[in-house]
């Protein structure tokens, strides 16, 4: 009843090709964006903006990147954090070494650098499939982090390898407060997410899905697997790279190569699995879930059990609960949170009637 496509006629090609063809979706997305842009900055305090909302947005972007590669093009990757690192260090170096480099351009260039590296490490995907490829992408993960540590040029010869992001100045305005940084992150993430949403229904996106479902069959019907896979690697790494740039500039401010370790790659992978493989919306839900869960556990476990456990046991308990919840989720809903949302939409469509 609340979510019915019936009666929404498309009278023009333009109307038929909108990103969100159903009016409820359009209104819903507009409301969510308006809430995020106008209401949240007013009601959220600094802690929420800095420690929760900004990382959720940034990880959503990284998860979209991985989702494009894994969920749409079917190439399992364990190197997303490394591509984030390329984006972060790339943006930093473009800002540092070119005078008057605008922040947004540096961010995009960092993303493009990540895309180039992604294509390089994507080349084996033409011959290697499945878990062999996943392990092969670990080469990217370890090699890139090693290179960033070993060649001090990347971190501008800082003795500890840590880089401090420059101030973000766009058109003379300095983004330094938590609200400004949040809004900037939000704007970039929204634009890129809509682009991704659009991209996956173009011929490129459909070619990705064809390759994912069966690459030999895709090749037979005239999709070039090499081109398709490499584009997927490039676009995915670009998204991860931009996410990495934001991670350095709007979230942490100072980053070191070791921050982009395998654990981060796994967390991004968890996000897309829990959120939903092959769903842009799922990337947001998954990122929110994975960012919020440890914070939630941190706050809840002491309340539930008081001081029954020592701090070290509590941290182990957190590991246990985290691992257990992931397994639980996979068993209960292997298609992720996006699937729950789909089921919810079905229910809304029919309610209050049974059929």
């Amino acid at each position, binding site marked *: 009843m609340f979510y019915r496509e019936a009666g929404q006629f498309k009278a023009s090609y333009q109307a038929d090709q909108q990103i969100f063809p159903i009016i409820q979706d359009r209104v819903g997305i507009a409301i969510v964006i308006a809430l995020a842009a106008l209401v949240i900055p007013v009601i959220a305090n600094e802690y929420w903006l800095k420690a929760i909302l900004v990382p959720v947005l940034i990880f959503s972007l990284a998860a979209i990147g991985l989702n494009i590669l*894994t969920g749409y093009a079917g190439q*399992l990757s364990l190197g997303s954090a490394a591509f984030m690192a390329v984006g972060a260090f790339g943006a930093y170096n473009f800002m540092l070494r070119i005078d008057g480099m605008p922040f947004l351009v540096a961010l995009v260039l960092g993303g493009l650098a990540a895309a180039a590296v992604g294509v390089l490490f994507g080349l*084996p995907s033409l*011959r*290697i*499939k*499945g*878990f*062999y490829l*996943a*392990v*092969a992408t*670990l*080469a990217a993960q*370890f*090699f890139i982090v*090693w290179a960033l*540590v*070993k*060649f001090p040029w990347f971190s501008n010869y800082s003795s500890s390898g840590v880089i401090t992001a420059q101030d973000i100045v766009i058109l003379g305005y300095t983004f330094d407060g938590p609200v400004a940084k949040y809004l900037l992150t939000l704007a970039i993430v929204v634009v890129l997410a809509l682009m991704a949403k659009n991209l996956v229904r173009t011929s490129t996106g459909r070619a990705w899905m064809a390759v994912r479902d*069966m*690459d*030999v*069959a895709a090749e*037979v019907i005239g999709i070039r697997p090499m081109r398709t896979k490499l584009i997927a690697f490039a676009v995915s790494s670009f998204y991860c790279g931009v996410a990495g740039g934001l991670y350095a500039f709007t979230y942490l401010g100072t980053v070191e190569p070791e921050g982009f370790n*395998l654990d981060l790659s*796994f967390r991004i*992978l*968890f996000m897309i*699995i829990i959120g939903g*493989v092959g769903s842009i919306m799922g990337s947001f839900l998954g990122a929110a879930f994975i960012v919020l869960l440890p914070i939630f556990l941190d706050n809840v476990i002491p309340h539930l059990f008081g001081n029954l456990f020592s701090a*070290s*046991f509590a941290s*182990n*308990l*957190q*590991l*246990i*609960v*985290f*691992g*257990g*919840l*992931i*397994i639980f989720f*996979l*068993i209960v809903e*292997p298609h992720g949170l996006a699937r729950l949302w789909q089921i919810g939409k079905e229910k809304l469509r029919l309610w209050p009637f049974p059929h």
Partner: protein
Amino acid sequence: MQFFLEVLIGGLLSGVLYALVALGFVLIFKASGVFNFAQGAMVFFAALTFVGFTEVLPGWTGLAEGGAVVFWLAFVLALVSMVVLGIATEKIVLRPLVNQPPITLFMATIGLSYLVEGIAQGIWGANVRGLELGIEDVPIEYMMEHHNILISSFDLFAAALAGVLVGSLALFFQYTKVGRALRAVADDHQAALSIGIPLQHIWAIVWGVAGFVALVAGLIWGARNGVQFALTFTALKALPVLILGGFTSVPGAIVGGLIIGASEKLAEVYVGPFVGGGIESWFPYVLALLFLLVRPEGLFGERHIDRV
């Protein structure tokens, strides 16, 4: 030349240890098609449980500390825990996930690795412990005197143990009824089911055996480097071994381990100085990657034929 040989032999022997971890992966992947990322966590769990029991057993039973009885009792108890852990994993985690895509199963085992690490440290604490197997880590005098090559007796013992383990596993697979059933399941799940092999029992057995392999690997690694959280990273070193040897091949795991072990040490010594060192962290992966470009199914993996 002597230095080269020393590095080579040292690398080969450490490769044996990688192979031990890789073996656990192969067993499970072969039988159930699950890429068990938690193998590293299981190694850690096994070693920690063993050490934990050797510490608490004298207090419980009044046996002499460090004696052979305590050692074997702890070994048996750790083995029982590993088998229980393996079977519980199969029953609780994997059975509900039957027929899910491989990536979901893979993610579940990553979740499992967090769980197992948390449980292990929650029970026994997170301190670094020493582990004493009673074999001294000293160079063999004979080789020192006659060939001037430094080989640790401990490494040699580890290699021998790995050899015995692989040999007995091969015999077990080849000549016992359960072993035959295991091979049938590895070959084709449905065909195995149709001739009356109980798939679930077989999986439980495989996880139990993988637990045993993890225990042996954990003991040797633990004795070498101390029982600590870093043990879980050995799993990562086993991954290039796996893709080099092929996911489904037991000899592949051994040969892959030897190649990775030897080449990473040689590369570190002979190439490392030119690029700033520390290349051990990524060299095995790049080597495996380059190798895969030539043979995408690994050394001994089954050639995969795609049909539309």
